């Protein structure tokens, strides 16, 4: 009896193992006219906005999901080797376009797509030239790649923070020294801090989301306020920093609207839905025949950058936002 049971189990497992790869081919459904590979390194709300904006803009241009477009969306779940495997999959399946979100995926997709003729449109990659994805931001260029960067004007951000908190002298910054985008932004911050009147910068780095809380705790008593750039690691651990800020009454400024929704005091940052839409518009142009090298890489337009404030969060951190700033905010979060 026991033997029979084991045999049945064995047979079932063998069948499952062999049949699984074939099942996917059948389950795909009807073949769409356009197949677009989309990948991201890690998931958080701003990146969802990016994706959403992309599909919206594509639909407006006539490329609608389920009608003539199939999106293959894969998340590398923080694993760089997976990012490469995902890029390889897109190339071997000869997708019509790759939409790469975040820097590591963009690098992997651009490397895999080289020489294959598959165009790559990236978004939310802060420093594409430094990451080697494009040779320059201007057009025309020989690359097969174009996209939208989420680099935000650091000076405008700091001026906003200074307007809200004129007495700020020492600023604490939390970021992952292992992310190029954060290193670039912190470098920019160091360049302009004298111009806006910030005297000192205290840095706390975290290499994984587990270390975010420790980094935040290390800033207690060492700075007047905390700021984080668009750093994927720090954003994933945002609530830990908010907890520390609220408990110790340290004002905490973010760099995107989503961070403010989650509990930061204020941010003047890129609108990720806008970035996604712009990338979608670029992708539509490429699919209609334009060469990606002819489309210049842009960053979020200043008019699309939103000033978002959260008076409730400020109160919890023992701080009041000046009425003048609340008045000119694009959005007030609850």
């Amino acid at each position, binding site marked *: 009896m026991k033997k029979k049971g084991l045999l049945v189990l064995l047979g079932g497992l063998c069948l499952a193992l062999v049949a699984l790869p074939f099942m996917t081919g059948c389950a795909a459904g009807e073949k769409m006219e356009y197949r677009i590979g989309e990948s991201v390194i890690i998931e958080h709300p701003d990146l969802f906005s990016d994706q959403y904006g992309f599909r919206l803009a594509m639909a407006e241009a006539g490329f609608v999901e389920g009608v003539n477009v199939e999106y293959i969306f894969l998340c590398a779940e923080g694993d760089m080797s997976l990012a490469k495997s995902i890029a390889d999959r897109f190339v071997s399946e000869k997708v019509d376009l790759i939409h790469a979100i975040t820097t590591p995926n963009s690098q992997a997709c651009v*490397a895999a797509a080289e*020489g294959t003729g598959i165009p790559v449109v990236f978004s939310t990659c802060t420093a594409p030239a430094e990451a080697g994805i494009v040779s320059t931001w201007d057009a025309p260029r020989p690359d097969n790649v174009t996209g939208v960067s989420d680099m935000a004007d650091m000076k405008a951000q700091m001026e906003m923070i200074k307007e809200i908190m004129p007495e700020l002298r020492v600023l604490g910054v939390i970021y992952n020294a292992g992310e190029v985008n954060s*290193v670039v932004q912190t470098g920019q911050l160091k360049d302009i801090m004298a111009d806006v009147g910030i005297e000192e910068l205290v840095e706390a780095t975290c290499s994984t989301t587990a270390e975010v809380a420790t980094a935040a705790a290390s800033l207690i008593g060492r700075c007047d306020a905390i700021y984080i750039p668009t750093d994927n690691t720090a954003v994933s651990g945002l609530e830990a920093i908010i907890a520390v800020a609220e408990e110790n009454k340290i004002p905490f400024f973010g760099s995107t609207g989503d961070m403010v929704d989650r509990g930061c005091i204020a941010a003047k940052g890129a609108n990720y839905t806008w970035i996604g839409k712009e990338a979608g518009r670029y992708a539509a142009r490429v699919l209609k025949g334009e060469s990606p090298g002819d489309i210049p890489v842009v960053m979020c337009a200043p008019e699309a950058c939103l000033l978002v404030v959260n008076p409730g969060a400020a109160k919890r951190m023992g701080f009041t936002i000046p009425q003048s700033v609340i008045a000119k905010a694009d959005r007030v979060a609850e």
Partner: protein
Amino acid sequence: MLSPMIQGILTTSISEGLVYAFVAIGVFLTLRVLAFPDLTVDGSFVVGGSLAAVMIAGGYNPFLATIAAFLGGLATGSITGLLNTKLRLPALLAGILMMVGLYSVNLLIMGRPNIPLLRDITIFDSIASWFGTERSTILVIIVFAVTAFITFMILNWFLRTEIGLALRATGDNEQMVRSLGVDTDKNILMGCAISNGLVALSGALVAQNQQFCDVNMGIGMIVMGLAAVIIGEALIHPRGVASMLLTALTGTFLYRLFITIALRLGLAPGNLKLITALLVITALAIPFIRKKIRHEWMPPATRW
């Protein structure tokens, strides 16, 4: 011949299996041959990648860069070995401390978290130009296969020499080997060095294949190496040196195959790792059940 999807799955798995096989061989060397659980792998993988990337981006010969990466791995492994043999730090702790510390060291080597190699001449570009062709997946597979074969042969020879045998004996029964007057400390040092040298070599090749080196790309390498070794062992029972090395290769190939299949199953993106784990469990359950049915199953020497 085969459908493009299966062809794609196989080519990716073979190329990834070959390049990450060095990681598995390195892990095998320390974990099974030397009985020294070495967790430095996460760090030494990137040491190799970063040394190669810095040199290639600086215009040096890519072959030189790859050799430098190997030497860097040798040095890294030596330090782990020294921590254990001279300072008497437990093996696990020595590996963990190295893994943690090397993150910063790698940032220092590269000077930045990420170095792109898209416009630079890598080993694959050099070899492609020798043959007058363009770089392609097939070329990459051939280069990896040749490197794996050469490494295989060298290790096969080395582990049968007197020094190599002493290494294997140290892992088997250190007390006995010491009682025969052999310096086991030196053997541990050598084993760690060679193992991490191979891992660093893998890191250099991976960086050149994916055309960028990132300080975070080593995260999870030890897990992959362990998974590959153990999957291989469950399916091929290594008896001698040649089968040991084949075990590492097969295990890596299968593990990457499962990951590639899971990627293509088209299920919700967040379930990728769960599917990979389930596939591995299924694949390992099959031989176990087969043996049970035939009453051939024997408990292994160690629970791990």
